[in-house]
């Protein structure tokens, strides 16, 4: 099954680029060790740089900020393929952000 892992945290203590790269390399290696596949993913700039767009009654509305103001914001996502939810949860639990943020696992809708 394919799962999107939405990586959320409160955007307070972002670690340095080097730390993140190292953490990520360890994580993707772990994914492989579980017989799963890392299909891709990105890191996002903080939500202060976000812009939201809606179209209502033909009118385009553009506003500053994320679509919902919460403490936890999506800071990135990863796409993985693995056997089942237990494996996905195990992989998510090893993500460097799991220790201070939260990872939401969403199954990918496949035809």
């Amino acid at each position: 099954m394919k799962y999107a892992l939405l990586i959320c945290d409160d955007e307070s203590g972002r670690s340095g680029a080097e730390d993140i790269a190292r953490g990520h390399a360890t994580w993707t290696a772990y994914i492989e060790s579980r017989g799963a596949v890392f299909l891709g993913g990105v890191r996002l700039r903080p939500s202060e740089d976000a812009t939201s767009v809606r179209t209502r009654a033909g009118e385009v509305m553009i506003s500053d900020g994320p679509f919902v103001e919460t403490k936890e914001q999506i800071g990135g996502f990863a796409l993985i393929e693995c056997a089942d939810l237990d494996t996905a949860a195990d992989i998510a639990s090893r993500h460097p952000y799991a220790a201070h943020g939260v990872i939401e696992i969403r199954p990918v809708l496949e035809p």
Partner: protein
Amino acid sequence: MSDEVGAAVGRAFRQEWGQVVATLIGLTGDWDLAEECAQDAFALALEKWRRDGVPHRPGAWLTTAARHRAIDRLRREAVGAAKLREAGILAGLEQAGTAGTAAGGVGGAGSAAEEPAEDEAAVSGVADDRLRLIFTCCHPALPLEARVALTLRTLAGLTTPEIARAFLVPEATMAQRLVRAKRKIRNAGIPYRVPDAALLPGRTSGVLGVLYLLFNEGYAASSGADLVRRGLTAEAIRLARLLTRLMPDDCEAAGLLALMLLHEARHAARLDAAGDLVTLTEQDRTRWDADRIAEGVGLLRAAMERGRPGPYQIQAAIVACHATAASAGETDWEQIVALYGHLVELAPSPVIELNRAVAVAMAEGPAAGLELLDALRESGALARYYLLPAARADLLRRLDRPAEAADAYREALALAATDSERRFLARRLAEAEGAGEGEAEGAEEGEAEPGAGG
């Protein structure tokens, strides 16, 4: 038409439903199909067993019947569509027939005379399916209320209306809850298996938590309440028994079963004829179920000997102290204090602190207990829990401070949730206001309340 056959089908339903459904889910991966085919198999049994006699191994007969039904239905659906996946499942289903789980053709004349010897592999295969079903129903990715409902439906065989009644929600709500849970299992890829060794301890305690919640729902229902609701304790005990058979090495599963048996043994004496709470001290101990107590104590002893204590075993040990005391005066309160101390370390919770304080009051005197209760009160942790002021009131009463006791009873009265609790407290309040006598303890009713195991 003999009632004997009806009774045999009823018995088989209680004993085999979970196994038939579990096996069919294992073979088809389709929860709805599994339930429907299991239902069809029981309907067929009612008809065939009247004609051919009750088979030697009803479980195997029913599993075979359900499996054949699944093959029929999948074949019909596969026609035209020729779905590869279903073809694979079909092959699996057909193979399962030759693998030995099933003996004797379903419709065949030989179905009443199956070979008596069931080979061990088949037995353990079935057991494994039920265990897979338990763990999947109690998967933490499902909401708690769905875990409970799914366990009752698929494993215990309660109908949706029965479960709805037991949990006091509309039938449509319960049906929706079950549909959503099954959909999530499928869509989110919740696996149908027993978790691996790394996950097993955490998942097992999740399963035990669901069973204990079931038990407590039934236990809290008064004898006058809906019988279905009251019947939840029996279902919980039945499922806990099954779990201890399937996981004989799990000491906490045994501890939970012992805990349930020891509580249930005293249920009849817990309320008087008017439905009012009777405190542990005042309970008529001759009304306790000695067989259940003996079984619970035996189970607990065997589990404890393995030296892997846990919250359920300790709670059971506490209840065993009460259940085996010949009279309230002979209760070993020092032992109970020590057990609560141990429990607080393993599973810290303010409810357990409260119970420990009450035990300390019994072992060392009300002043020592009150000191602990006051500390707990200051922490603010149990601000909405009526048993805290109720316990304080009781100790104040015993310390001959009736005015403060009356205040605390009033506080408890405002928080109590059920009529019988309120009647009990009102009685005590009246006594305190009259600076009355009486010497029973109200607070022990808090002993091992729901959720105390964490």
